[in-house]
């Protein structure tokens, strides 16, 4: 077990394409870090540089106290779980697990003991003599995990390990990976494009975009205070509503519609407003409100997603299924729940908002001036 320090790491391909741009990240011992981002954001490249499957163009990666830039992958004391399992098809499950240990000259008795332990942990004992092709997808994924576990490495690297599984199995395996990592306490670096997987697994998640880190933080912090419009739209489902607005004094204009709050004074006059679908609620009589024209509805059971238009712009609200709907609904939101972003850079206007509007815990919709 060890910490991992990634310092100013870049990946520049022949032809000058920079897939990863000077990324720095310190991972504590035993921490579960999830790299998340859309395809092409450089998350897999970063992981593969740590694994040693891609050369590091610039910067250093340390595992423990050792710079591993020029160390062979097999000597880096790491184990990797691949997306398509990458099991050795000609070997039995037992040999798949034992292969890495055999190559390191581990004594036979110890190999047996470690394989038995891993097999018990992952409940794959009945399949040890089978070949991978005689296993189901979930079982193969367990074997792939087992192959990583038996090595007792300093760190686990996961490259989208669940994306080949069906939805139900993915949820189960997600839970198991989390439990296993907690039990073993092994530092883990996990790559996914699935924000839900990222949210549920991570101790801290790292949102990548275009080869750069957009935000590092605990899942709930990232969810509640996204650092940019990119993070806001990527983390959370449904995606956060992002609307352009102009401020005049204490009034926010969304086209023809207006919200009013006395705590907006420090904000710029042009801004992007972020609204989580679940922060919207139906306005009571007399409350100031935004009027949404309903387009269509998605029933999720516990929630109902109402998609519609707010002055010509798309808006989604997550409402209770009990509420009766008409063609237009009047929605309201606590001003403290609004997220403000810079129009040009997309960065969160954190200081200004927190100073002017206050923490979101201490305010409610009722403070809003009557509209």
């Amino acid at each position, binding site marked *: 077990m060890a910490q991992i320090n990634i310092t100013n790491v870049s990946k520049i391909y022949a032809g000058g394409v920079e897939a990863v741009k000077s990324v720095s990240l310190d991972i504590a011992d035993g921490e579960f870090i999830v790299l998340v981002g859309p395809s092409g954001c450089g998350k897999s490249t970063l992981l593969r540089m740590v694994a040693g*499957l891609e050369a590091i163009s610039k910067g250093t990666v340390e595992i423990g106290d050792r710079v591993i830039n020029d160390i062979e992958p097999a000597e880096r004391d790491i184990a990797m779980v691949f*997306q398509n399992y990458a099991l050795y098809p000609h070997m039995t499950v037992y040999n798949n697990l034992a292969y890495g240990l055999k190559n390191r000259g581990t004594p036979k008795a110890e190999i047996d003991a470690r394989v038995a332990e891993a097999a018990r942990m992952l409940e794959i004992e009945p399949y040890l003599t089978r070949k991978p092709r005689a296993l189901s997808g979930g079982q193969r994924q367990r074997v792939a995990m087992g192959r990583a576990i038996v090595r007792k490495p300093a760190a686990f690297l996961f490259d989208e390990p669940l994306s080949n599984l069906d939805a139900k199995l993915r949820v189960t395996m997600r839970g198991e990976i989390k439990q296993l990592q907690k039990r073993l306490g092994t530092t883990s670096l996990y790559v996914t494009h699935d924000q839900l997987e990222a949210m549920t697994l991570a101790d801290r998640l790292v949102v990548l975009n275009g080869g750069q880190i957009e935000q590092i933080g605990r899942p709930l912090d990232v969810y509640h205070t996204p650092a940019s419009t990119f993070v806001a739209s990527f983390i959370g489902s449904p995606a956060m509503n992002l609307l352009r607005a102009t401020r005049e004094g204490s009034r926010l204009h969304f086209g023809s519609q207006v919200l009013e709050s006395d705590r907006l004074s420090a904000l710029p006059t042009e801004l992007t407003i972020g609204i989580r679908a679940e922060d919207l609620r139906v306005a009571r009589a007399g409350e100031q409100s935004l009027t949404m024209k309903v387009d269509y509805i998605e029933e999720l059971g516990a929630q109902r997603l109402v998609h519609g238009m707010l002055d010509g712009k798309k808006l989604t609200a997550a409402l209770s299924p009990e509420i009766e709907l008409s063609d237009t609904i009047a929605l309201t939101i606590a001003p403290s729940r609004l997220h403000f972003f810079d129009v040009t850079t997309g960065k969160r206007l954190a200081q200004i908002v927190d100073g002017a509007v206050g923490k979101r815990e201490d305010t409610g919709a009722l403070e809003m001036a009557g509209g």
Partner: protein
Amino acid sequence: MTHAPLSSPTPAAPFPSGAGGLFRRFKARPSEDTSAKRVQFNSPLLPYLFLAPQMAIIFIFFYWPSVQAIQSSFYLEDPFGFGSSFVGLANYTDVLKSNEYLGIARFTAVFTALVTFFSLSIGLLLAVKADGVIRGNAAYKTLLIWVYAIAPPVAGLMGMMMFDQHIGPLVKFAGLFGWEMKVGLNYNDTAFAMIVVSVWKQIPYNFIFFLSGLQGIPVSVREAAIMDCRSGLRRFWTVILPLLAPTAFFLLIINTTYALFDTFGVIDVIVKDKAANNPITLVYKVYMDGFRGNDLGGSSAQSVILMIIVFVLTIFQFRFIERRVHYN
């Protein structure tokens, strides 16, 4: 209008005749999941009709000559076709008692083993190296493959020029080491040239198959092996080679057959019909005795023996080697 049925404009019936009806009505059977692609024929005769041309070719060019060979191996044929007399197994005993024949059989065994071994291993080595090349690998592969496009006699001719007494670069090269190579005169030198030319001719074929086999190994499996095993050589023996085994096994059979039979052209060019003291293989001996010596009976007996050898060899390969092959 006498042609009314044929010129019928109904688009739904493009084949108004009886045969057309057969074609129109065979259809896929949707209900059975295991045979989703199996076609159901309405007439039980139709599938045999489809097979008939292939069966005819196999029968005319393979079974019939085989039967003829077996039959004539029991006869002593008059060289001028004036009749034949039944001699029982005499042709076989003559052949098997002949020291010359046994010597040729020994050479054939050594020749086949060496040609198979070297053409497989060099083909594999080149494929592994070419697979590792990233830049300009298309040009690389083309250069390695195009030897295969050369016809065997031409390859033999080119090989002979390489080994020519006066202008052959290989002879000159060997001369640098004090090896006075006399292809066509010295038994061992001739054998050496035959093996080199035969191997050279077969390498591209093996190269193509090994290369495609290598490219069929998933990248992630190789990467997993890189994480698990430091030594590249050990990775090759424990992961890459076992995954190539199906290809290698197929090539083993093809190469054995090649060395036994298809090297005929190469040998023919090198010994130029005058075997004399030169090494030849069994199949060339069949040709020499049958077409040059006009001993059709003995020649037939030899080809039957050859048939049996190949039969046994193939059974051996499938029984004992294929068992170790993992098909994915």
